[in-house]
């Protein structure tokens, strides 16, 4: 059986400048691919080529086994695309716009009303059906952009920064929608928000200067948390052999700059690790959850300084060495 999306050695040039090169991809139904990279890395160009808005300079691209370059009309029937800026017509009303999109995607006239109703319901647009697009808030515009991308129930949905401009509640709803979509189709999304990609994507492609620099599957959140890795800074660090004898420590490594990387023993909360380090009198100064899998990969791949992690850590117990603990506030 052929892949939902198969891309081989895809490249795109602009007047001699290479914007994208060497992209190979295979996406199956049920997968969510996160496209990452710094600004100017070629993410939007890649999505424009995948959506048929730009022709590739080299390489092959097929959706549901149909070559997008050779048979674009047939291939695009399986495709839904939300560009970076939702493609809206301000003079239209929501219902009118979705009806137009449905016709554009060649939904038979008799099924248009049902398709519009379904798309509005999925994107929580039921209450604004009669509203002019020019009067919609940014969040509604983004949701309407999503609705037009899924109105024809495509097999492949391409979303360019879908949560841009949304409030936290709307972001949560969009993530839920993406998960729901991925149950029966493939999704490609680009985003600058690493935790978002970590949460909803099953695989990731990192681009830099138009070239793929990392590609692979992502561990799920549960697997991430199960790993329980922490970065620890101690005033009086013991030898590693002594450290691993603590019942809360599964393994430990010495990092640069006096940092230790400690893996928490399975089944224990982070507070147990903090307590055991304090009680052992090592002078706990910092306890930070290790970066998520994706963040580590992203920063390592791009050769950037990761900085402090941003995941919440467990509350620390009081230590006899009083002043030491005042520095623990950094463990957040």
């Amino acid at each position: 059986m052929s892949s939902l999306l198969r891309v081989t050695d895809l490249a795109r040039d602009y007047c001699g400048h290479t914007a994208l090169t060497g992209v190979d991809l295979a996406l199956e139904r049920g997968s969510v691919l996160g496209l990452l990279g710094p600004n100017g890395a070629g993410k939007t160009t890649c999505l424009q080529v995948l959506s048929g808005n730009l022709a590739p300079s080299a390489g092959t691209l097929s959706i549901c086994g149909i070559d997008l370059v050779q048979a674009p009309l047939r291939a695009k029937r399986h495709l839904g695309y939300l560009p970076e800026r939702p493609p809206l017509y301000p003079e239209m009303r929501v219902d009118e716009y979705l009806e137009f999109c449905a016709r554009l995607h060649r939904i038979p006239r008799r099924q248009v009303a049902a398709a519009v109703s379904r798309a509005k319901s999925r994107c929580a647009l039921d209450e604004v059906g009669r509203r002019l697009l020019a009067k919609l808030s940014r969040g509604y515009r983004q949701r309407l952009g999503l609705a037009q991308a899924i109105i024809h129930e495509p097999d492949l949905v391409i979303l360019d920064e879908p949560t841009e401009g949304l409030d936290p509640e709307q972001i949560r709803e969009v993530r839920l929608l993406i998960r729901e979509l991925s149950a029966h189709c493939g999704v490609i999304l680009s985003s600058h928000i690493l935790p978002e990609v970590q949460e909803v994507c099953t695989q990731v492609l990192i681009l830099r200067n138009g070239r793929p620099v990392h590609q692979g599957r992502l561990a799920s959140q549960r697997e991430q948390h199960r790993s329980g890795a922490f970065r620890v800074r101690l005033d009086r660090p013991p030898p590693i052999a002594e450290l691993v004898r603590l019942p809360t420590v599964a393994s430990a490594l010495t990092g640069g700059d006096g940092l230790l990387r400690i893996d928490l023993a399975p089944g224990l909360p982070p507070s147990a690790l903090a307590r055991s380090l304090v009680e052992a009198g090592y002078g706990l100064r910092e306890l930070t959850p290790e970066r998520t899998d994706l963040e580590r990969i992203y920063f390592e791949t791009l050769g950037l300084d990761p900085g402090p992690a941003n995941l919440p850590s467990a509350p620390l117990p009081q230590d006899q060495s009083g002043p030491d603990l005042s520095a623990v506030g950094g463990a957040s």
Partner: protein
Amino acid sequence: MILTLAGREWRAGLLTPLGWVLLAANQAVLGWTFLQVLERFTGLEAAKRSVGLTLELSLNLWGFAAALSLLSAPLLAARMFAGERHEGSASLLGAAPVAVAELVLGKYLGLVGLLTLVCLIPVLLALTLTGAVGLDPGLLASATLGLWLATLFFAAVGLFASSLSAQPGVALVAAYGILILFSVVGQAGRVLSRNIGLFDWLSWNEHLLWFLIGAVRLSDIAYYSLFTALFLALTHRRLANRRLV
């Protein structure tokens, strides 16, 4: 699909102020011209009238309507492709299963539909004289056909210019540039040499004149059809290439 696209353009033209402002401006200017023609004609003694009222109206009112149509077509056409690219909605059409030819024809039909309203203004003005004077319907039909064919040509040029840029302003200037070139090329021919008929033939107004005096010639119909098709083909080529460059 072509009708879906044309219908959207038609509705957009009537829902935005631009379409109505253009219609109102054309109506006001043509109404004024109509009254001027009537006043001049009725002010003359019968012996001094060299041509009939229908021909006067045809040459002045329909001729002026063609000039207004030349100005209106690029204004309406500029938002078709350039405006869509500027606003970011072009990617909706780019990702949809719509052939470039359908896209061009859909937009073109929508544009022509709006401009046809402008072409009907002189007819409506002339109809106000029904019962008062006897106008030559054949001559008016010929003039209206000429005006409409010229408008089809202006719309095709406007659409082509709109496909050239993502900036509606640039598209507008490009369209006016091409149309002015087609307007003055006949004059250039006369300056260079009296024997070069090609320049006269290229000029759109030379062909319109025959319609305005009541002569419907196949060569004039062919001229407008040929250049309309040429600019639509160039638009198609341009849009197909834009995905490549």
